[in-house]
Structures are given as C-alpha cells and as structure tokens.
C-alpha cells in the first residue's frame, strides 16, 4: 500500500480550523497528523476508509442507500412540521443543500448555535 503525504491539510475539529497539518495516509487510514494538537490528531486518526457500517439502516435493519433516500424523503414530505438540525460536522456545500431542502419543505431550520 502506498503512503501519501498531504501537505497543508485542514483540521475542522475545533474552531481554529488549522490549515497547516501534514497528513501521512495510505488507502485505509491516516497514520500521522503532524502539527495537529492532541484533539486534532485523535480526530484524524480515528476515522478510516473502512466499511465499518452498512450503507444505511432503516428501522435498525441494514438497507441500501437508494431505499434509505426514498424512505427519508417520504417521512420528510409527509410531515407537517419537519425539522432540519445540526450541520456542525459537515461542509458548507452540504449546509447549503440542507437550507434548500428546508426551504422546499417549509421546515424548521437550526444549528448547534441555538443550544
């Protein structure tokens, strides 16, 4: 397995968003996160590219992504007052999609900030 080095990678574990991290990774996991602090290191090293979980779960049972998307869309559409919440540990691109979806649904929209 080939070892890649990624320079100036970005850590998003805390609000500092350090963008000077040097990552050493193979195909499956990150082995080293140079310059990152203890929190950042454990964040980088704890995620892998392994398939640890099923693609999706519906009522606790493994399911395919397509099925899960269909069921999720159904629940959201059928609801009178759906809620879209969270958006901390995700990208701005995904956040934008969430806002668009909430708009389409006429939903409540909220993030961690309100806690």
């Amino acid at each position: 397995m080939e070892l890649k080095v990624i320079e100036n990678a970005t850590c998003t574990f805390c609000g500092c968003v350090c963008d000077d991290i040097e990552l050493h990774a193979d195909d499956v996991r990150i082995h080293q996160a140079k310059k990152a602090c203890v929190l950042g290191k454990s964040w980088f090293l704890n995620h892998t590219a392994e398939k640890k979980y099923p693609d999706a779960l519906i009522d606790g049972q493994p399911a395919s992504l397509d099925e899960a998307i269909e069921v999720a869309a159904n629940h959201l559409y059928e609801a009178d007052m759906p809620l879209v919440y969270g958006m901390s540990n995700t990208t701005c691109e995904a956040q934008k999609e969430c806002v668009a979806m909430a708009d389409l649904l006429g939903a409540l929209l909220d993030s961690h900030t309100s806690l």
Partner: protein
Amino acid sequence: MGGKVTCTLGEVKNRADFIVYWGGNPAECHPRHFTKYTLMQKSKFLPRGRKDRTVVLVDIRETKSAKAADHFLQVRPGKDFELLTILRALIKDQKVSEEQVAETGLSLEVLKDLIEKMKAAKFGVMFFGMGLSMTRGKHMNAAALLTLAAEMNAFTKFVAMPMRGHGNVTGADVIMRWQTGYPFGISLNRGYPRYNPGEFSTVDVLVRGDTDCAFIIGADPGATMPKPAIDHLAKVPTIVLDPHVTHTSRLSRVHITTAPAGIAAPGTGYRMDEVPMPLKPALQSPYPSDEEVVRRIRETIALRPDWMTNQPQMIEAQI
C-alpha cells in the same frame, strides 16, 4: 451576529497587544489558538511576540488557560453581565459603588487597573466562550461584551470574537445568514424565513413536541440534549446522516452513513473568524458525501407536488 466589531485572526496575530479570553478555556478546547493566532506569534508590529502582548483571562474558575495569562480575574458565577456593565460604566468614568463591584467577586482597584491597560493598548481583542454565552444571561452577556468592545473604540482599537466550538458550526451560521438572512432558529413554514430563538430553536421545539419529523446531520443530539428532547426524537421519524452509527442513529427510523467531512469528503469549512478554508480529504470513503445524500433527498422530495401551492390555507387564514 451581524454588526459586531470584529476582525480576522490574521489581524490578531499581527497586531493584538491586549488579549482577553472571557469564559473560555482555549488551552484545552482550542489547543493551538495561543500558539497559532494569539500569544506566541511574532510580527512586524509585535517583534517580541509574547513579551509584547498582555493576556487577561476572565472565568469563574482557574482553568489551565490561567497559566498562560498575565492576569486572571475570577468572576463570581452568573455575574458576567454585571461585570461587563460595570466595565462599560467605568471606561466612561461613571460612578460605580464598591458594593456593586464586590457583587462580581472582584475589587474596584483591579477593574480600574484593567481599564487602564485596555485603554493603553494599541489593538485590543476580546475572545468569548461558552462560559459567557451559555450561562445566566446567555446572549445578553455576549451582547454586553460586544457593546463593551464597540465602546472601547472611543479610546483605542478594540474588537471581539466568539470562540466557536465544534467543526464547521461557524459555516452553518454563515450559510444560513446568506440564504435566509438569519443565523439559526429559523422557521420556513410560512414559505418565508422567520427567526425566533426560543420558539424555533431545536431544544425548545423538541421539548414541546412541536415537530413530527427530524432530520439530523453532523450532530448527535441523542448524546447531548436533555432527556425530554431525546424522547421526542425517538417518538417521531428521525433521519440521521453521520459517518458513525451514533446515539441518535440508534433511536432513528433512518440512518445513512456518509463520508467524514475533511477526512474523506471535500468541501469548505469556516474558521471562527469567518474565513473559509478548503478541506483536503486524505482518504477515499466507500460512502457518499453529506452533500450528495442531502441533494438526492431534496431532489426526491422536489418530484412531489409543492406543499405551499397545495395547501395555502395558512396564508388565507391570516388575512
């Protein structure tokens, strides 16, 4: 928080010679804040780095961050608003009695000394954490601190900045502000955005049982929220998008595994000073990104008849 007097961390790094941390513990929660942005950096304007800067910590107890500070002010729990208001009065030479100051757990002498130092600074910055904005007074405390920073500008340059916590929560604020005009606590159920924290904020909505379907992404309220809120999440159909099977996933109807942002999914994240940073994923995930899954759910919903034109009764009922 539109209208706040603030700056970027680059300016802090290069110019701030007076730094206050209020109600936060950066040494343990933002470990590289001191070294990368505030205390330790040398610059053209502060060639001696740490020696050219004065650092004050205001908190209810002496945390590890106190060691890094020159002055530690221990405020009595729940008295932040009073202390901030007294400081606002003192900078304008208004009269404050000893008893009023004593209530905050500090002395007039200490505060006068603090104000002298604040006014003598060339560039002051106040960082505030959840110890200020999540305790008694909440956003009113944050507003008082922001006002103090703004009023200090009558004497010298002063700015304030919230120490934002987990992941891309700053990005969520920015994106919602951009798209709806409000940062959080929004309802779109009349077809246009309305803002009312307390009414539309999630904990309150869940505790009151005011939602009948929850979509949770990049958060684990099942581990952090009060029990009545979690109970409601378990009662209604909940949909979770997360790289892990979380506490919330276990009580949800639908869980979809996604690639972790920044590690295996590309995109943008915002730093606490609202500077966007590109993410550089190191791994290739077997799972799709959040962005892709939300888009596909949205597109599936969009195929159905629009609820607004379908049931315009709310608008009519109002007239």
